[in-house]
């Protein structure tokens, strides 16, 4: 490639990247401004007198701490439970021969195609009947047993050669031993991918909490910033500070684990 061509490619890519990050930079900049400064044009990216106290103010104005705690609880419990139950089920679907295996697996795959919107109403009825509506456990129950997780892990477990588990069996390991000592250690990349997918999904989920969580003490961050926006609709700077606080944990986690994330996505695209 000639140098001019190379430079053009870089300029195009950098322009694109600028468009992609513009809303985030604008959000960061607005979050340390006064309300009057937020919409000033031309944009002053770094204000003369940064309003850092906006970040203290939001925790006072609204019960952000509770929302944060609830979101962290949900994210950890759902991610942990789905890793635990999905990996066990995926082992049965990939490493144990039993007559109903394919039929049961077909049930799992079949329901992946059904949109959440179709089952959200019956799920709501069931949760209400067992008395768990307006409880964080409602969301744990509907999100921790996702057939998608079983499918993802099963596909990966299938690629682990059976010779390995058979050799271990001859050495005297039972299925549980093979699962914990052979399959799980080899499946670390797939487990990491599922963990990140679930983490990001639960942290960012809006429709689920919107349906189930009505009392303030149960709300998650996503509901929290929406509530904040409707209550203080003209406090632009504070709304931006609250949004920054809501997105930062996921961005940090992504920056650390992006290798797994990007590889997982690339894998799912190729394997299909």
């Amino acid at each position, binding site marked *: 490639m000639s140098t001019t061509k190379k430079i053009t490619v870089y300029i195009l*890519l*950098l322009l*694109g*990247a600028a468009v*992609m*990050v513009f*809303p*985030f930079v*604008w959000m960061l900049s607005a979050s340390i401004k006064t309300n009057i400064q937020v*919409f000033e*044009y031309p944009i002053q990216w770094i204000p003369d007198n940064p309003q850092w106290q906006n970040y203290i103010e939001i925790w006072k104005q609204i019960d952000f701490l509770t929302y944060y705690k609830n979101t962290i609880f949900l994210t950890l419990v759902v991610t942990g439970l789905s890793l635990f*139950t*999905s990996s066990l*089920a995926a*082992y049965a679907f990939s490493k144990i*021969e*039993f*007559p109903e295996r*394919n*039929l*049961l697996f077909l049930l799992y795959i079949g*329901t992946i*195609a*059904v*949109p959440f*919107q*179709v*089952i959200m*109403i*019956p799920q*709501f*009825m*069931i949760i209400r009947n067992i008395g768990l509506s307006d409880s964080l456990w409602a969301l744990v*129950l*509907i999100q921790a*047993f996702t*057939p998608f997780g*079983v499918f993802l892990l099963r596909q990966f477990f299938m690629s682990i050669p059976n010779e390995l588990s058979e050799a271990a069996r001859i050495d005297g390991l039972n299925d549980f031993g093979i*699962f914990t000592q052979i399959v799980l250690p080899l499946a670390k990349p797939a487990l990491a991918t599922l963990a990140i997918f679930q983490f*990001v999904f639960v942290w*960012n989920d*809006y*429709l689920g909490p*919107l*349906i189930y969580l009505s009392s303030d003490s149960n709300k998650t961050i*996503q509901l929290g*910033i929406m509530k904040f*926006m409707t209550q203080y609709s003209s406090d*632009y700077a504070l*709304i*931006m500070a609250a949004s920054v606080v*809501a*997105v930062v944990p996921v*961005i940090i986690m*992504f*920056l650390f684990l992006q290798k797994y994330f990007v590889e997982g*996505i*690339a894998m799912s*695209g190729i394997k*299909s």
Partner: protein
Amino acid sequence: MKSIKNFFNNIFKSSDSGAMVSKNRKTAYFFLLPNFIGFFIFTLIPVAIAFFLCFVRWDFSNPMRFVGLKNFTYMFTDQTFLIALKNTFFFTLVSVPSTMIISLGLAILLNKIIKGVKFLRTMYFIPYITSMVAVAIVWNMLYSPSMGPINNFLRNMGVNNPPGWTASTDWSMIAIIIMSVWKQIGYYMVIYLAGLQGIPSHLYEAATIDGANSWQKFRYVTLPMLTPTTFFVSIMLLIGSFKVFTQVMVMTSGGPGRSSNVLVYYIYNQAFVYNRFGYASAIAFVLFFIVLAITIFQFKKEEKWVNYT
């Protein structure tokens, strides 16, 4: 795809027998149980109930009433439903091709360079992992017709009457589409990039020897070799676009008027605001059948344009 066919053929076959089977079965169920209980109660049973709910009228407090196909026939006279259906199709028809073209273009550019790939990939990917609620709130401010930076920029460029974006019935869907495309192109770019890296370089070398220019290489090597990726991307995008919800709820609440109402937003409102659970379920099933029909159609057409090597 072959493996899928084998899989279907093997569903009812099993080779082992006797004591071995019953021992394996016990172990298998032990491993399956923790997930299966949850899956059974919170996914499988709801699917069955959802189907049944389509044929009833029910608001939780009064007894359920069987109404046959009335929920479905009512839809055709329900103006809001028809508008939501039309808007959802509009969203799909515009956002799916734009996302595919832009993300493929970016992936091709990114595949040309060596330095800075990781950094740029991260920049493009960040919108995808951040919360829809937060970015929708930011975009709403960017779109603000009178004070937002987008219209300020357009006015500076000499546009006297910039669009009203989310505040205008003509532009609300477009505003939502631009924001949605922005949010997801990074993800599909990564998938396309993986697809591009899977194309063997000797194909390009052979094309160069045959005297192909870069457009011809793109048209006769890159595009055909990418068809499996394009197939996957188009299915994912179509399914996703019919479920558009959060950005509508946060940015416009379906408005102004009904100009940006979409199916899932309408389902949500019918069910959890107006307590019309039967009618909402019926609409949800229509949504499911549209998605299913399109997916099946794509799989049927697959052999015509997708090359598996």
